[in-house]
C-alpha cells in the first residue's frame, strides 16, 4: 500500500499541467509532480512515486537503494505492476503484460559500489 517507487524524470509536460514522464526501470509513465514542484524537480532528477504522484526528490544513490530494497522485500513485481497500471482506466489487463518483463532490467548495484 505504501509502496514508494523510485523513478527518474525524463521529460516535463510542455503545458502548464504539473506532470512529467518518469522512467521506472524502463517503464515510462505520466506522473503528477505538483508535490515536488517547490523542490524544483526537473529532467534527470530522481523522485519517489506513490500512487501516480511524485512525493519527494531523492538522490540517485537513494533511488537505487530503494529499488534494491523493493526487490529484497519481494515487492519489485508489485511496484512494476503499479507503475504499469498508471494511466489504465479500463479493463486492459492484457495490453501491458509484456512490460512486466522489464523487471529483468532491475539494476544490480549502486553506481559507485
Amino acid at each position, binding site marked *: 500500500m505504501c509502496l*514508494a517507487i523510485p523513478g527518474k524524470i525524463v521529460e516535463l509536460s510542455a503545458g502548464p499541467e504539473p506532470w512529467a514522464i518518469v522512467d521506472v526501470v524502463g517503464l515510462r509513465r505520466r506522473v503528477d509532480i505538483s508535490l515536488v514542484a517547490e523542490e524544483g524537480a526537473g529532467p534527470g532528477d530522481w523522485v519517489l512515486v*506513490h*500512487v*501516480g504522484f511524485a512525493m519527494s526528490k531523492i538522490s540517485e544513490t537513494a533511488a537505487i537503494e530503494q529499488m534494491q*530494497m523493493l526487490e529484497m522485500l519481494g515487492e519489485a513485481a508489485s511496484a512494476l505492476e503499479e507503475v504499469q*497500471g498508471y494511466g489504465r482506466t479500463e479493463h486492459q489487463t492484457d495490453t501491458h503484460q509484456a512490460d512486466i518483463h522489464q523487471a529483468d532490467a532491475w539494476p544490480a548495484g549502486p553506481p559507485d559500489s
Partner: protein
Amino acid sequence: MKFVDEFRDPELITRTAAEIRRLADPQRLYRLMEVCGGHTHAIYRFGLKDLLPENIELVHGPGCPVCVLPMGRIDDGLAIASDPNVIFTAFGDMMRVPGAHGSPLQHKARGVDIRIVYSPADALKMAQANPSRHVMFFAIGFETTAPSTALTLMRARALGLRNFSIFSNHVTIIPAMRAILDSPDMRIDAFIGPGHVSTVIGCRPYEWIAANEHKPVVVSGFEPLDILQSIVMILRQLNEGCAEVENQYRRVVPWEGNRAALKAIDEVFKLRSYFEWRGMGFISQSALAVRESYAEWDAEQIFPTSGLRVTDPKAAQCGEVLKGVLKPSQCKLFGKECTPEMPVGALMVSSEGACAACYTYERRRHYLVSAGA
C-alpha cells in the same frame, strides 16, 4: 543469522546487531512499536527478530491502511457500488478485504462494476471517459496517500467534473499513536516512526510524544540496516533516559515534511470528530472527511449510506493483534480459518498486515528449520 549474507553490507549489519546486543540491558524488557506496516513487512521478511536479543520485543503497530478500516466502511462503499450507474474504483489492496457480505472482489464476481486503479488520477480519467456513469474512488491511506486524493479532487473541481466522487477513509497516524499510548493494556517504550508518512508530515508532529510521553521516536527507513540503526538510536536514548525525535531516514524524509502535500490535504479535507479503527474502537480526530467546499465530490454526501457499525467475526482477534496485545500466531484463527488466500480479518490481506507477514515468512522459516535447511 541465516539471512544476513543476503543483505547489502552484511558486515555493517553484523556490527550494528552486535551494538544492539551491547546496548540492551539484560535486566530490562524493551517494547518497541514499529508503527508502519511497511516496517512490519520488512521485519518479518528479513527475519530481523533473529538478530535481536530476546528482551527486545517488536510490537506491530496500526500503520496498515486496509487493516484498520472497519468492516462497516467497506459495506457502505459497496452499498454505493450496488447502484448500477456507479463505477466503484479502489486500489488493488482493497479488493480482497472482507466486508460483511463479501469483499469487493466477490461483489465484482456478482456483477457489480468494481475496478482496480493504481492512482486516484486514473479514477478521475475514468469519469471523464464515462460521462454517463458516476465514478467513485474508495480512498484509503494515511498521510502518504491523502495528498494524491486531495489533488485529484482539486482537479475534479477545476474541471467542473460532476460524475466523480471520493469516499474518504483517510486516516491520520498521530491520533492512533496517542490512542496506543492511552490504552491501559499497552506498554510501549519507544516508536520506530513511519518512513513515508513522514515524508509528508515531517518529524515535528512526533515531538509531543517525546516531550509529553517521554517516549523516543526514531523515523526509520525500510532496509534491514535502517531498522537496526533505528533500534540502536532508540536504545541509546532509553539508556540515557532521554526522549527525543530523531530522523534516521534523512535521505528521504525532510524534518519539515512536504509543505505542498500538507497544503493540499488542508485544502480538501477536515478532521472528523471521530472515526472507528478496526480493533481500536473510536479515536477522536483521527480521520479526514471532505470539506463542505468540496461537498459535490464527496460520496458520503451524495449517496445515503447506513453508516452501520459492523462487528468483526467473533473468533477473529484482529483487534488484539492490531494493538500488539496478541502476536499474530496467538490468534485462534491464524493459519487455520484465516490465511492470505481466504482472509477472515484484514490483517491477513495486505502484505503490510502483521498476520500476512507473519504467515508468509515465519511459517516458511519454521518449515525450513524443521526440515534442517
